[in-house]
Every structure is written in structure tokens, then in C-alpha cells.
């Protein structure tokens, strides 16, 4: 899966399922603050990632994830 496809899929489920405004989505957007994702949302992120990429994330995976670019990179690394 190319990086572009990964980004597109992530952006799509953030907009469709998490109701994030498309204008708020940018690589430097802070997941917690800009995208307003709380601890419960991170559980649902795990569900969406599993459904979209077949990859199961755990809590430790998010330790260094601050902005959306970190999240894109995390998924890319998991898939590589």
C-alpha cells in the first residue's frame, strides 16, 4: 500500500467516522487538540485501523504519536 493510499484512507475515516472537519486535517494537526480526540477515541482509532488496514495497534504504539503525520508514519511502519 502506498503512502498516499494510507493517508487517504486515514483521512477518510477521520472525516466519515470521527466527524473531523476536513479543513482541520493537515500533517501537523495535533491529534488530541486540533482533532479533539480523547482517550476513548483512541480505542476507536484502533478499531478503525484494524478494519481498514488489518493491523492491531496497542496503547504503546501511540506514545510518540502527537500529530497526524506521526499517525500516518505509524501505520506505514506497521504495514512495511
Amino acid at each position, binding site marked *: 500500500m502506498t503512502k498516499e493510499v494510507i493517508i487517504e484512507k486515514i483521512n477518510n475515516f477521520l472525516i466519515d*467516522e*470521527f*466527524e473531523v472537519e476536513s479543513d482541520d486535517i493537515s500533517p501537523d494537526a495535533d491529534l488530541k487538540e486540533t482533532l479533539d480526540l*480523547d482517550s*476513548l*477515541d483512541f*480505542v*476507536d482509532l*484502533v*478499531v478503525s485501523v*484494524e478494519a481498514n488496514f488489518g493491523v*492491531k495497534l496497542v496503547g504503546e504504539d501511540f506514545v510518540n504519536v502527537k500529530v497526524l503525520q506521526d499517525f500516518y508514519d505509524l501505520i506505514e511502519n506497521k504495514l512495511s
Partner: protein
Amino acid sequence: MGIYSCIGENLAEVKESLYKGKSGIVVDKERIDFGYRSPLTGMVSKPNLKGILTRKQRISIGEEGEYAYMATIEAFKNAKIDQDFIDANQVGILYGNDSTTKSVIESVDKVREKKDTTLVGSGAIFKGMNSSVTMNLSTIFKLTGVNFTISAACASGSHSIGMAYQLIKSGLQDCIICGGAQEINPYVMSSFDGLGVFSMNTENPGQASKPFDANRDGLVPSGGAATVILESYDSAIKRGAPILGEVIGYGFSSNGEHISTPNAAGPSYAMKMAIKQAGISAGDVDYVNAHATSTPVGDANEAKAIFDVFGEHGPAVSSTKSMTGHECWMAGASEVIYSMLMMHHGFVAPNINLETPDEDAKKLNLVSKTLDKKINVFLSNSFGFGGTNSALIIKKI
């Protein structure tokens, strides 16, 4: 008050159905495939809450909570309560609910499939607990008062109003959202259907529920939600609220006998207790909304109890379950609303499908056709598994 019922999804629709004696019972084909003995049920449409509630709110709310939300927003509108009032006052919630079967089964099925608990998502826990309705509505509306669920089988909704009445009467709260919610899906009623107590009249769904009739062959399950706002008189007057009626009596008891077979003594005691608390005589009651579900033993014992309390020439009696089916955890609250609508519009809704009253029912003043009649005081009965009984008396203001 607000209502989301199989005979109407708002107060105006429900009033029309009650007056016309319209049944809300249908055949649910999904239940036949699922293995039900009887596919009859009351049915409501699924509320579309996208754009009304946020994603975070929607993923934590189950079917019964969605119905309760719909009923509650109508109740707030009807009561002229807005978010500013809620933010400035300690509004509580005591709501009746006794199952979240669909939510529990769907989340456990997901764990079985995925072998991973995280993959059920964050909302599953909040949808699956029995207090789901109160935990969701209290956070959606930012309530700061009393907050818990009343689980008392088919008397849950009635006891929630009774408990709210007690808290307000004792001065502990000024405004409480109460009511009852009941999920409608093949999962929730399957074990109840297994007891063989549901009507099998699939040829004529609208005639299946026939409380007090000699040829009744069982109840019809149903659901939805009903919300009643209880408020202290002072609070209601202070904010200029439309006061619809006054709760003047709440009687309760437990049969102390069989888990499912009701008796006459327990209900009789609850009704007498409510009448005594109300400071009225039995003759002051103009209408009794019977619990009668259309089961052979239950209806007969309630008829005996009503006769014991009111005697010859008693008040008008009808069971609105003849139209709605048995709304179970919701019924105690919805039937207060049905009776309130009758009181306000001056009629007694019919006990439809009553052709041949049985020996006990013959002694009652049963209303089988819509009766235009002034109601000043009504009593609403609700009984449940385990022998829990609740009787509420409400007076016109």
C-alpha cells in the same frame, strides 16, 4: 412529557391513536427466522440522530437510549425546559430500564469473532450497562442532580415516577426527568417468548392483544420510550411551566410469591396505599389504566384486585396495552402519559379487542369503545416479574 411509541412517535400522534383505538402491533418477520414462537410486536422507527448528537454521543447510546432521547427532547419542549434552565438548576434523572440485550450481544459477538476486547470499540461498555439510558441522557443534557436507573421489570417506568415523586416531596430535588425505555429487537424478547406467553394471533396482529377478554391468548411485546418531567410546584410556578397534573399518590408492594405468576393481594395493597397517600377515597378515582397485559392469570388477578379496591360501580377501566402491546420497562411511564392525554382531552381510550369479558372482568366498568368523559383523577397500575407492584395516582391541576 414526551413519547416515542408504536402508536405514535410524539404526543399528538399518540393522542389520535388513543382516541381512535388504533393498534400498533405488527408481525416482525425477522423473529420468525430467529426462532420465535410468536413474531408479534409493537414497532417504532429507528431515530436518525446523526447531525443531532455527536459521534461520541451516538457510539455510546443503545437502542433504548435513542428512544429515550427522542422522548426526552419532546418532554423538554413540552415542559418549556431549555439548556439554560438545566445549566442553572440541579436537574436529575431517574429512568426505568431493565435490559440492554442487543448492545451486550453485539459487543460479545464481536469479541468472539475478533478474539480481542479492544475491537468492540469505546462505546460498547456504555451501551451495555443497564444504566445506559441514565448515563447517556445525563451526560448529553449535562444534568447535575440525582442520577440512577430503576430496574423493576415491567414496573420500572412507574417506580421511576414514584421515586422521583418521593424525592421532590421530601425537598431533596426540584426537577427530575423520569420515564421508561424498552428496546425492540429479536434478541431482547427471545427468552420471554420461550415461556410461551405471547399471543399467537398472527392472522390479525391488531386484535392479538385483548386484555380482560375471555379469549385472550397472551401478551404482545412492544417498546419505545416515555419521558415525564416531575417538578416541585414552587419550581414550576417560578419558571412559568405548563403544569399538566399533580402526582398525589404512589403505592408499592411485593407479592412475596411466584417469580412470574402475579397475585391479587399485592396489587390491591399497592392501589390502596396510593389512595391512602393521596388523601382521597376510592370513589374519587375517575379512571384506572390497568396493567392488564392480555395474559390469562395476570388480567384475572388484576381484575380481582381492582374490584377489591373499588367495589361495585367502580371507575372506568381500560388497558391501553390492547393497542400498544406490553411496553415492559417503558410501560409504567408511557401509560401515565396515555392517561394524561386522556385527562387533558376529556376521553377514556378504549380497551380494544374486548368482546367477551371473563368472569372477573365482568365486575369492572371496562371501556371497550372510546368514551368522552371528564377525568380529574386517574390511577395507573404497573406490575412486574418478581411480584413488584406500583400504583400511581395523578390529579388534574
